[in-house]
């Protein structure tokens, strides 16, 4: 039996039944990383020694009868989440040597739950991108076809889960960075409601959009990981003080009477016909299982991309101002004075995509352009949010494709920045409205995974999980 290929809930049962030990499981995953990592390149920093240490501690807790379902389960973190004593690069040369002196709240919670950190995964620099090709280090590979990208920006985490180089992973999603690579790699990825999961210790990209979420092999594992990471945090005032349900209660294999909205704009021009066919077929099966399916409209969704490419770079230009060579990370040009030091450090440390977004953002916020760009985009964001509110008056969840195409080839879109950005056109509106969304695999196209996206009301992750679970069960 290949332990690394199993899910967290299956492994948890085996650990508790003493069929396997936590160290045995961790060694199995570490050995598999050794085997496939040269071809996949999911990890910036594997942490085998730490993993063995944590596995031993987890086993001690299992032996004492501790009931935590994540005890001894290997997990990988996207390398934009701070891990005390473990390098956290954010995929950027400007943080190539950054070893955080504190832990992100999600990592602290995973440690409390007894999970085992096996490594920090690759990403597009500062989570800006859709393929990991913008990583300051290397491009990760799609396990289904290593000539293709895993998607991004959490492509290292989704590739690691798909290639069984970890059991669970966390990603972050600002415009689709969990769901789109989950779709490309054929795994489950959830962006929770904005405010459901603490962002403390997540390297900030666009603070009003960023959200951490699970990347897993199945929907039950997604619910288990959501249970572990959700909830208020005194260190993040945007993390809401709402009770967190047991998300595994949502895993009900029944969609009878559920009202599913199909946003017609998400099936329009630009979405590959084979992807439409795959997703439509999934929706037909949900309807056959008793869901009430209706067409809805989100007329402002077509403005999602321009809204995002004003607001996210504007927030990024402010968030990334801290990388100036003063307190940590790269430092260049010290002898030329403090302004030159900042200018040289930033120009050398940031890659092209980051430089461009800092430039757009700074421009959009600069005197004379604020109203035309930033304010306009924020107003349009209100209209988009209202579109979703209206749709949710009629239905419980929305169902649509996650991304317009399956995974593209490495280098294929490198010279076509707009085409690359279109990979996120169906996920960005969800971030702008702050909603929870999940991507689950549906029928592949030419052997490549496709994602079904399920979007729910704010703080109603349970409904998205329920539809996703029912769909997963139908496929056997």
């Amino acid at each position, binding site marked *: 039996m290949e332990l690394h290929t199993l899910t967290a809930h299956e492994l948890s049962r085996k650990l508790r039944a003493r069929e396997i030990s936590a160290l045995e499981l961790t060694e199995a995953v570490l050995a598999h990383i050794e085997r496939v990592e040269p071809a996949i390149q999911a990890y910036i920093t594997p942490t085998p020694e730490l993993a063995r240490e944590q596995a031993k501690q987890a086993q001690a807790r299992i032996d004492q009868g501790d009931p935590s379902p994540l005890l001894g389960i290997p997990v990988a973190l996207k390398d934009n989440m701070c891990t005390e004593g473990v390098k956290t690069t954010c995929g950027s040369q400007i943080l190539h040597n*950054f070893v955080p*002196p*504190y832990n992100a709240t999600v990592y602290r919670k995973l440690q409390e739950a007894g999970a085992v950190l096996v490594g920090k995964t690759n990403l597009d620099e500062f989570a800006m991108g859709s393929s990991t090709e913008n990583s300051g280090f290397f491009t990760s590979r799609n396990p289904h076809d290593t000539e293709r990208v895993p998607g991004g920006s959490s492509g290292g985490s989704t590739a690691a889960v798909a290639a069984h180089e970890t059991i669970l992973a966390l990603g972050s999603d600002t415009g689709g960075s969990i769901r789109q690579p989950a779709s490309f790699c054929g795994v489950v990825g959830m962006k929770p409601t*904005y*405010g459901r999961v603490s962002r403390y210790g997540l390297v900030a990209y666009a603070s*009003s959009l960023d959200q951490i979420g699970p990347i897993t092999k199945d929907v039950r594992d997604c619910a288990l990981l959501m249970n572990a990471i959700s909830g208020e945090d005194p260190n993040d*005032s*945007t993390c*809401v*003080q709402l009770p967190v349900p047991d998300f595994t209660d949502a895993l009900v294999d029944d969609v009878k009477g559920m009202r599913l909205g199909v946003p017609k704009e998400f099936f329009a021009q630009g979405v590959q016909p084979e992807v439409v066919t795959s997703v439509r077929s999934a929706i037909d099966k949900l309807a056959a299982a008793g869901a009430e399916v209706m067409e809805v409209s989100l007329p*402002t969704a077509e*403005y999602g*991309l*321009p809204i995002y*490419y*004003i607001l996210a770079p504007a927030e990024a230009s402010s968030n990334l*101002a801290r990388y*100036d*060579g*003063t*307190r*940590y990370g*790269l*430092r260049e040009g*010290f*002898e*030329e*004075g*403090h*302004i*030159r*030091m*900042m*200018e*040289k450090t*930033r*120009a050398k440390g940031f890659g092209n995509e980051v430089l*461009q977004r800092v*430039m*757009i953002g*700074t*421009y959009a916020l*600069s005197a004379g352009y604020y109203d035309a760009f930033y*304010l*306009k985009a*924020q*107003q*349009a*964001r*209100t*209209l988009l*949010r209202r579109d979703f509110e209206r749709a949710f008056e009629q239905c419980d969840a929305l169902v649509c494709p996650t991304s317009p195409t399956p995974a593209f080839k490495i280098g294929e879109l490198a010279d076509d*920045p*707009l085409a690359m950005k279109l990979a996120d056109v169906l996920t960005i509106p969800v*971030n*702008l*409205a*702050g*909603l929870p969304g999940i991507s689950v695999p549906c029928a592949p196209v030419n052997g490549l995974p496709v994602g079904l996206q399920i979007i729910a009301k*704010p703080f109603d992750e349970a409904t998205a999980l329920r539809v996703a679970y029912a769909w997963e069960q139908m496929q056997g």
Partner: protein
Amino acid sequence: MALTIEDMKHVAKLARLDLPEVELEEMARHLNALMTHFEHLQALPTEGVEPTAHSIPVFNVFREDETQPCLPRERALSIAPEARDGLFIVPRIIED
């Protein structure tokens, strides 16, 4: 409306980026092409619409004003490019 090389130089200065002119020109071409695709946003009627800064309403969160442990100074300085006597070392800012 297109970004000129003068705009680019000004923005690079605001953003504290030491980029050569040839790179700024290349970037201007790229950003102008992108902005053309996004121009249709300007046609969306938004007069009188409240702007959204946060998708979910956010409120101030209060706690008791009690002293709590914070990151020890040595830990914060341990990752500095250069530190001495409990301080970050930076280039001289005030002239003699």
